[in-house]
């Protein structure tokens, strides 16, 4: 009896997954076949490398004022020119991605982890708890995301840790919905029932049976959330609710140099180019990942 169940367990598991290969490996193979995805991956890796290497390669001190070269046009001395305080734009652009990348990468990981686990658990336990939490999720998603972020910023300040937790919490709320819907597709399949019938504890079922099958969707979801989190983070710093002023940050640089747009467009354009290429890269990567798991949602819904 018991052997029969475990045989059917392995059999159905092979249906649920590709035989012999991990789903993540399949995604990588799919990604490698997509030229746009590889371009996106290269852009993203380049940005991460630049951000890591920046402190060692920048030509100037990011907060040092050069009073002889205020709003200087790009030249051999200042390749990207200087801003209205005479600070080197190349230096600040190279350093400006560090906090954005740190906050959004850790924040996305956080969002996917807690949102994914809670969503999977809700799909499994169902019932009144599921109903209550989902209504709360609906209510939070009904509020403009930026409004909640602004309230969190006025509540807890704008430390890096607060930004990570705030973004991670808020974006995780939307992940709950996706993870729950994904899990509902296979929560009643034989391999889950078999594990339940064999008396596996709830924790084992969630981590061993449900999570592996939702992992590919969560990965794609993570890439999409990452690009939106970058948008949200840059909007926060642009509005002055992100990083504190002397720190180089793209959103902040754009906000501060906008009033000299006519006189010194380079001070605005280089940070714009930096943030735009990064988000384009992440979006290309996310699109290719979605295609690799057969989930082409055309860029997805920002929910």
């Amino acid at each position, binding site marked *: 009896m018991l052997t029969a169940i475990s045989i059917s367990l392995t059999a159905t598991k092979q249906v649920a997954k590709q035989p012999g290969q991990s789903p993540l490996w399949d995604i990588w193979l799919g990604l490698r076949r997509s030229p746009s995805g590889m371009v996106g991956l290269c852009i993203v890796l380049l940005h991460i490398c630049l951000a890591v290497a920046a402190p060692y390669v920048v030509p100037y001190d990011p907060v040092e004022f050069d009073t002889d070269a205020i709003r200087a046009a790009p030249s051999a001395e200042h390749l990207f020119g200087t801003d209205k305080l005479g600070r080197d734009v190349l230096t600040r652009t190279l350093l400006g991605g560090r906090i954005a990348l740190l906050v959004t990468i850790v924040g996305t990981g956080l969002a996917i982890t807690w949102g994914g686990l809670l969503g999977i658990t809700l799909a499994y336990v169902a019932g009144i708890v599921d109903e209550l939490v989902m209504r709360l999720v609906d209510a939070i998603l*009904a509020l403009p995301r930026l*409004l*909640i972020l602004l*309230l969190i910023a*006025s509540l807890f300040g704008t430390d890096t840790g607060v930004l990570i937790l705030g973004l991670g919490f808020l974006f995780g709320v939307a992940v709950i919905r996706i993870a729950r819907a994904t899990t509902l597709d296979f929560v009643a399949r034989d391999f889950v029932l078999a594990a339940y019938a064999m008396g596996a504890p709830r924790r084992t079922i969630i981590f061993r049976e449900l999570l592996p099958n939702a992992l590919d969707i969560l990965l794609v979801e993570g890439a999409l959330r990452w690009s939106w989190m970058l948008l949200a983070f840059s*909007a926060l710093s642009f*509005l002055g609710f992100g990083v504190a002023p002397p720190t180089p940050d793209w959103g902040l640089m754009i906000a501060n140099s906008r009033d000299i747009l006519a006189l010194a467009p380079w001070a605005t354009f280089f940070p714009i180019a930096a943030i735009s290429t990064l988000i*384009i890269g992440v979006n290309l990567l996310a699109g290719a990942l979605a295609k690799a798991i057969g989930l082409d949602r055309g*860029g997805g819904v920002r929910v």
Partner: protein
Amino acid sequence: MGRLLVQRFSLALVVLALVSLIVFVMVELLPGDAATAYLGRNATPEGLARVRVTLGLDRPAPERFLTWTGGLLRGDLGISLARQEPINGFLWMRLRNSLLLGIIAALVGFPLAIGLGIVAGLTRDRLPDLLLSTISLIGMSLPEFVTATLLIYFFSIKLRLFPAVTLVNPDAPLSELLPNIVLPTLTLIIVLTAYILRVVRTSIIEVIRSDYIRTARSKGLASLWVILRHALPNALLPTLTIAALTIAWLIGGLFVIESVFNYPGIGTLLLTAIHDRDLPLVQSIAVVMALIYVVANLGADLLTLMLNPRLRSPRTVG
């Protein structure tokens, strides 16, 4: 159908009630209360106590929550601390300005996105599609303030066509407001079109691959007729739901866009309110924004129900 309507409607009410609770609790958590915000630096303990009594802050939180929501139900939003006047007096003009932006952007953006999305979907992986897909990828990758800044650079600084900042009163007549909304609306249209286009493209591709389109084609129906009569209605249904969902970040994007152009809408009002710690105003704006979102989603749900016969049949209503 009737039961489904009642269900959707009561769900919307539950969500709204929860929203007002969340907003109340969050604002309640903010350091200091309305009295400290009101008196600012000059606060003495006696003064604070007096203001708390006048504002009703000495009563317990659950009671204040009920008073506040009671006021909301009667359409009374309370009094702004920073302005010392009823919120009803100025909020709606700001909302009108924001809605003006949003509605014009939607009226131009949705048809544009649907049209271009159909073109992209039908020419999949050929030149028009590649071009449109690339443009929309860039459009959705640029933060709203970047798009706005680039538009200002080209249209205000280089071509000197439109003003870069809005310099009119919030309650100015529409005619005075119109030249000022061109660039903010254009920003919103670009972001909106970039997203919806991709959704329409994907659902067109899915639909033309489906069996019933193949059947219609093999019956010898003309291609264009098949697309208009059979493919389009089915492809547009998911777009409708997504269009309603985009309202949430459309409103979120408004904060940034309005702030870039200094446009006197509800977004800039909220930023000022947060800056001034004008807590009653923050609460009111949050609830109004959530209300717009919930109503838009309810509307899209109902429209989807009306347009999709499969969802109307009593069997699936369950």
